[in-house]
């Protein structure tokens, strides 16, 4: 990667960790609406078909309300979403409209002749998916022709693992993903094996650190960082590098195996307007699909393309956090569509960077403790400033907590009171500049507070008041730097108790398994089979 992707500035420091993972879809959209002054409320919905609770949210102004799930509104045609969920069906529809599609066939036999008759003209390699259940396609890939397909299917049929197989052509072609809202392509990305780009001065190890610094900022619940381990060393070795090598400027060095997970790379600008229009027109064949993603194969040289599928429930994280290129403002496009009167009207343009807590949505709402949460309005007035005040004190923390909270309420501050350790404290405040300086002066009159400093705070600020006792953090990791949204801080004591309970349960389970192993070793059967294990061990040697 060029180690310098451009992400959306409004999301820097304003995405709480509670909104990481799949929640990023709902959070970024709700956040976009909220900072335009629209009302946002989250509700606890119940899906009878799925038999579980789910989060939906309502964005509204005085004139209208629109309900969303993830990043999709209830105005998107459910029929079209359902059609789009079956790629075999969608390809049939598109093929019928003379749209080039990735060819595919469903095969139920291992008979080579029959297979040949169906897929002989496919572009190889082909992908074979076992259709045990539409939602759980397990794909494998074969590099050969129909014969290999027949052999694979024959083996699977013999093992009685599956009866139906979907064969798709062009299995090793690069896929492109285009997000379309309201008849416009908002962004296109593709996926590439993770790499770093040499600059002629930094070693691979240093470039990797840069890359990981970016990766750790991606709001993902899984660790996306690349470890310096044997796997990496092997990958580098294949390219005649080691971690201390200094690649030439512009030289791409792969840092993960081809088979591993890939990185999103934004490529919107490589497509002509004509090509984008073609993609948009394709979505017209699914009426009411206001928002969707077109997944397609594309040849940059010939501009030939074929549609792989249309996704009616696309996620947006890869558009917002590409590892290369510029983030594409999908939430903006969606809110522009549903609330066009708010286009470009951001309250957040002249205020400090507010964000809202998502922990309560993920915790209280998802766990059915609350049925509805209404966000407070995005604060908006002139002369708001954001400051960070730190001080030391040996004063009773409970009393300090009350004093600070009272001032937050009286002076109408938003922000946080963070207990860093037993004697070090940090305040993040947003309020009128005169109130901020008054408050700082006021703190300086208190004898029980020492070493008070106030600096500008550029990071995000949680709306409302929040107390974070960082001393109770269950991990041994040092506190995260202030400014960015800190979900670790936000764990309520209830959650901490829940985590502790999980740890206890896991420990108990390990102990139980260890006991089982011991019991097994003492059993008669273990003793009887002991010679077999000895022979096996000798054979291995």
């Amino acid at each position, binding site marked *: 990667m060029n180690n310098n992707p451009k992400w959306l500035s409004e999301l820097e420091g304003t995405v709480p960790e509670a909104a990481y993972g799949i929640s990023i879809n709902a959070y970024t959209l709700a956040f976009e609406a909220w900072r335009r002054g629209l009302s946002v409320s989250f509700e606890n919905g119940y899906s009878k078909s799925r038999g579980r609770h789910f989060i939906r949210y309502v964005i509204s102004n005085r004139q209208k309300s629109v309900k969303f799930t993830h990043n999709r509104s209830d105005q998107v045609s459910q029929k079209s979403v359902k059609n789009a969920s079956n790629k075999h069906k969608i390809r049939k529809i598109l093929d019928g409209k003379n749209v080039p599609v990735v060819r595919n066939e469903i095969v139920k036999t291992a008979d080579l002749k029959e297979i040949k008759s169906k897929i002989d003209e496919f572009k190889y390699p082909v992908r074979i998916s076992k259709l045990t259940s539409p939602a759980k396609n397990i794909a494998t890939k074969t590099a050969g022709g129909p014969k290999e397909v027949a052999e694979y299917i024959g083996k699977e049929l013999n093992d009685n693992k599956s009866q139906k197989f979907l064969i798709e052509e062009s299995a090793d072609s690069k896929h492109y993903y285009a997000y379309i809202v309201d008849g416009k392509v908002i962004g296109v990305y593709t996926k590439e094996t993770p790499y770093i780009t040499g600059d002629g001065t930094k070693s691979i190890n240093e470039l990797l650190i840069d890359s990981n610094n970016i990766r750790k900022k991606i709001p993902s619940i899984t660790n996306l960082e690349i470890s310096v381990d044997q796997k990496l060393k092997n990958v580098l070795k294949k390219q005649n590098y080691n971690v201390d090598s200094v690649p030439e400027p512009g030289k791409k060095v792969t840092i993960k195996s081809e088979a591993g997970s890939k990185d999103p790379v934004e490529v919107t600008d490589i497509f002509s307007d004509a090509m984008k229009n073609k993609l948009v027109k394709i979505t017209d064949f699914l009426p009411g699909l206001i928002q969707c993603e077109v997944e397609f194969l594309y040849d940059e040289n010939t501009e030939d393309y074929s549609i792989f599928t249309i996704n009616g429930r696309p996620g947006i994280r890869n558009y917002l956090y590409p590892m290369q290129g510029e983030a594409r403002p999908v939430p903006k496009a969606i809110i522009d569509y549903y609330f066009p009167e708010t286009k470009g009207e951001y309250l957040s343009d002249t205020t400090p960077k507010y964000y809202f807590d998502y922990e309560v949505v993920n915790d209280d709402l998802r766990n059915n403790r609350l049925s509805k949460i209404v966000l407070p309005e995005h604060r908006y007035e*002139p002369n708001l400033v954001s400051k960070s005040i730190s001080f030391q004190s040996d004063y009773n923390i409970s009393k300090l907590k009350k004093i600070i909270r009272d001032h937050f309420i009286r002076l109408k501050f938003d922000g946080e009171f963070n207990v860093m350790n037993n004697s070090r404290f940090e305040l993040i405040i947003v309020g*009128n500049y005169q109130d901020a*300086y008054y408050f700082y002066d006021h703190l300086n009159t208190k004898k029980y507070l020492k070493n008070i400093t106030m600096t500008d705070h550029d990071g995000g600020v949680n709306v409302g008041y929040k107390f974070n006792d960082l001393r109770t953090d269950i991990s041994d990791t040092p506190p995260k730097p202030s400014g960015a949204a800190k979900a670790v801080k936000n764990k309520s004591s209830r959650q901490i108790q829940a985590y502790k309970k999980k740890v206890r349960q896991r420990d108990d389970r390990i102990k139980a398994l260890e006991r089982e192993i011991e019991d097994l070793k003492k059993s008669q059967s273990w003793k009887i089979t002991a010679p077999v294990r000895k022979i096996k061990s000798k054979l291995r040697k």
Partner: protein
Amino acid sequence: MSTTLYLDVPTIGITGSFGKTTTKEITAALLSVKYDIFKSKRNYNTVRSTRRHVKKITDEHEAVVMEMTMGNKETGKNQCTLIQPNIGVITSVGHAHFENFTSIHETVLSKSEMMKYMKPDGTLYLNDDDEYSQLINTKYFTGNIIKCGITESADYRATDIKFNNGGMEFHVKLNGVDEYMFLPILGEHNVVNALFGIAIADKLGLTPNEIRQGLSTVKVQRGRLTLDELEGKRSLLDDSGNANPAAMIAGLKVLNTYLDSPKKIALLGDMAELGSYTREGHEKVGKALIDLDLDKVYLYGESSRYIMQKAKDTGFDEDRLFHYTDMDALIEELITNFEENTALMLKASKSTNFKKVVKRLLAEYERVK
């Protein structure tokens, strides 16, 4: 929700307990000499009115003069969130709209919202004569502060104040030179209101001549201390637009000091919206009467009884005090007593409806100029 209008041109926000409309009119008249301005209409000064005004401001306007009421907590914030002034004026702090507050300190805080939400490096104009304006805590304001008044410490100070030809003559120092000014409306308090306009005009580069030219065009709305000369050398000083204790005393001073009629009559009505200050406010006016040389004082409305009682208590001649609760009877009595060579001043809150009295008097006697 609409976003704040931040303008690069002079954007003047005028608030205060009294004098807002007059100051706005004067400032607008002065700036009109040099600039294409937008001014808020009449005394439409609520948040809702400001929202409407803001929509009418265009790129053509070179300066904006807005009257902004801050008669409630957070109203100032809401006003400045619609359009942020880079020049702020707090004309005075008093007991007008006191029903919304529990103490004068709350009123001070409410008016101080102008200072808190206007442009931090803008210029704020304060009344150096006004007692309660001294309570405004300017410690954390990061812009410039200019004080206007008659007191010596004022940055823009009016001296040699005289009444002449239906207006006020005074001098003010501009760039070190003592300049003569004439304001075609009455009252020392209006001279201070004019000083705000003069100070702003001076800051924005108007010459003394341009300022004089602007002042000559100042017109105030009917009922805001407007003077009608009627047949038989009768003078009708109509201040029935609105009232609070300080403004009522100021109006009485104009009648007492600047009109030279041999006979002087005051008609004082109830002052509304004073809340817990109702009794004290009326009594303050009653107490002031003893220092004035008035032939008769007519009082109308329930609260005005406090004026009467306090006037009596402080030694004002009881025989010169008349209280009425019937408007028609009051009008008849006034017509009888509004003899030749008499000056009559009316002052009350708008809700007291002295407009009816004025209408009847103007119908009865012809204007001579």
